[in-house]
């Protein structure tokens, strides 16, 4: 089976550049929608297991990993044939995960069990279970690969886990219900969104080597009740100049200046905007909109929504091949 997979990968790579595809997990529809990022057409929809949420691709774009939350497993699909190849042990109720830039291992947040599971993508074995705070959710890996960060929703912390010995070295308190974490590409800053707190914490390493909150970004939209400004997904442009924050039931993505950390604009999207991903060239940002069953395409340079694409029921996450 495994040799087959490798054969497939090789043949893909040998074919050269394949068309870029975006994969959207539909939490309620139990499907994965495939979108061609040139034509913005839906080209396929296939079964994704029960309650697919977290979704990501192997670094070479050949494998699609999906957290099938209600199946307590990670399902692995071929990105060309859309066939399910095998499943990986994930621990119970996997929701969000990150992959090591080398393609191995996966770091998976288990919301029900207060642990982060580290799974080897080659041997398919669980390497480690790291106890963290209550309801682990957001996961990020630092560009230098030294840290995996997990956020716990009821403990309200970002836990800094060493990728070397899987021990928690630092804990940083943030606002209520931290959902998502992501580093800038230079690794200087970590952003953590707090859904109920309504803020994004900006975390940097102090000179003594401990992370600390250096700023908090708040949101304000006239005519929208403050309690509905619930930051969830965060994406930062490669050069760090812009930060995009999905505001959930406020149906908007905030555009933030990477230097001043000022909120510059709010882009109207579909309803309950949740997770986001850039296309490989960084020109477009796709958002999943769980209550309007669509994906909004944002032109990154123009900071405008240019298209919405109907997908499956209650889209949750999105991953895009990076050619």
């Amino acid at each position, binding site marked *: 089976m495994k040799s087959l997979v490798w054969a497939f990968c090789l043949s893909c790579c040998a074919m050269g550049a394949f068309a870029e595809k975006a994969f959207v997990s539909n939490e309620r529809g139990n499907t994965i929608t495939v979108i061609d990022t040139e034509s913005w057409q839906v080209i396929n929809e296939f079964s994704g297991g029960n309650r697919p949420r977290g979704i990501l691709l192997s670094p070479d774009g050949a494998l699609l990993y999906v957290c099938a939350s209600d199946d307590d497993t990670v399902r692995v699909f071929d990105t060309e044939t859309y066939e399910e190849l095998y499943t990986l042990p994930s621990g119970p109720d996997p929701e969000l995960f990150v992959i090591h830039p080398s393609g191995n291992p996966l770091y998976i947040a288990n919301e029900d069990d207060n642990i982060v599971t580290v799974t080897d993508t080659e041997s398919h074995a669980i390497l480690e279970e790291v106890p963290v*705070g209550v309801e682990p959710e957001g996961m990020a890996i630092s560009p230098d690969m030294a840290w995996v960060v997990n956020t716990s929703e009821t*403990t*309200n912390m970002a836990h800094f886990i060493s990728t070397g010995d899987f021990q928690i070295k630092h804990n940083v308190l943030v606002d209520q219900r931290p959902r998502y974490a992501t580093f800038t590409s230079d690794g200087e800053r970590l952003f953590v969104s707090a859904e109920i707190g309504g803020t994004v914490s900006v975390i940097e390493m102090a000179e003594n080597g401990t992370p600390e909150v250096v700023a908090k970004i708040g949101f304000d939209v006239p005519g929208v009740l403050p309690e509905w400004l619930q930051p969830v997904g965060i994406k930062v442009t490669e050069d760090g100049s812009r930060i995009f924050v999905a505001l959930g039931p406020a149906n908007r993505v905030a555009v933030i200046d990477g230097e001043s950390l000022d909120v510059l604009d709010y882009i109207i999207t579909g309803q309950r905007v949740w997770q986001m991903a850039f296309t490989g060239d960084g020109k477009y940002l796709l958002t999943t909109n769980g209550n309007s069953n669509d994906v909004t395409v944002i032109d990154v340079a123009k900071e405008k929504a240019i298209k919405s694409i109907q997908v499956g029921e209650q889209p949750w996450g999105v991953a895009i091949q990076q050619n």
Partner: protein
Amino acid sequence: MPRFLATALPVALSMAMSWTLSLALSLALTTPAAALDVLAGVLRVDYPSLLPISRYDLRPGDLGFAGAILADEDNATTGQFLGHSYETVTRSATPETAEAALEALLQQGVRFVVVDARGPELLALSDRAAAAGALVFNARASDTALRDTECRGNLLHIAPSDAMKADAVAQFAIWKNWPEWMLVAGSNLTDQSLAEAYRRAARKFGAKITEERVFVDRGGARRTDSGHVLVQRQLPVFMQGAKAHDVVIAADASDYFAAYLPYHQWDPRPVMGSAGLRPVTMHGAHEAWGATQLQTRFEKLTRRVIQEEDYNVWLALRVLGEAVTRSASTDPEVIETYILSDAFELAAFKGQKVTFRNWNGQLRQPILLYDGRITVSVSPQDGFLHQVTALDTLGLDRPESNCTAFQGGSQ
């Protein structure tokens, strides 16, 4: 570094964080955490009562206490990263032994007490606790007066008032365009004060009570074998000939008749309030906003489904845990000041943060409307606006409260 600090200032201001608090917070984050041991107590007063109409409403022996065990686990998981430990002592008592039970807790050094009791006992216990410098969390008593003229400076209300729950039902009825109500109340004092909460809610939101009836409590058992035969013949007659109404509002705080109302009316109308669609803080099927995780943690621990009493106690101790985490103190005064400050916020599986009214000590929270199986809706409803927060459309608002025991209260 200084660049980012400069940008942090307006953000902190816009979040209305007090400077001293944000300073304390940054200190807590940068200095090594000091070890703290948090000792709390839960005092449950059990009243002599008849068996409930439905076996589903039987009170398990660990009712409320189970919420304390879960809260200790949740708080301890967070506390382990900060060097904070949590221990909660649970005690049950009769109305007669409640004061002695409180005394024992205070003797043990407990200064944070969650009380699950009715209004009169709660007030007596709160006053005794105040003398010992202890902070009390009300997990049960819904008397609106406790948030009004009878409020206490050391008494914080986790449980919603009758006024909050009645407003939650009223908003849904108005949203549905069901403005004409038939109010059926019990004859006991608590039933009558609940009925008054619904009259007040009707006035507040523009509903009209077209007919009022009192179902007299004649005592006796609440259910008998094949008792439904009589109920089916008697209740429709009691409900016959009412003026036109869209909905029946049941005010039965003593739980002796409301459960029989649905399907036994003369006119086919939905029932809300004490039966049919009921306002609750939590129920075992609530899954939105991450509540599934709360349910599975609770069920793993107790092998039963969560009830309101468990959630209320859990929430009280989570409020305490959150305040300890952020203020790095176990001093009841510091903790209460933090809880009542603008900086306090907590996620409680209700879709928005819960905070406190600093003028009467009441926790603001959305109210679930529950039909016995699922969350039908959540109040406040869309379109009910308020200058502070939509949550303040539920219950006594600041200008209506005569509470003066708090700094933020009316003078």
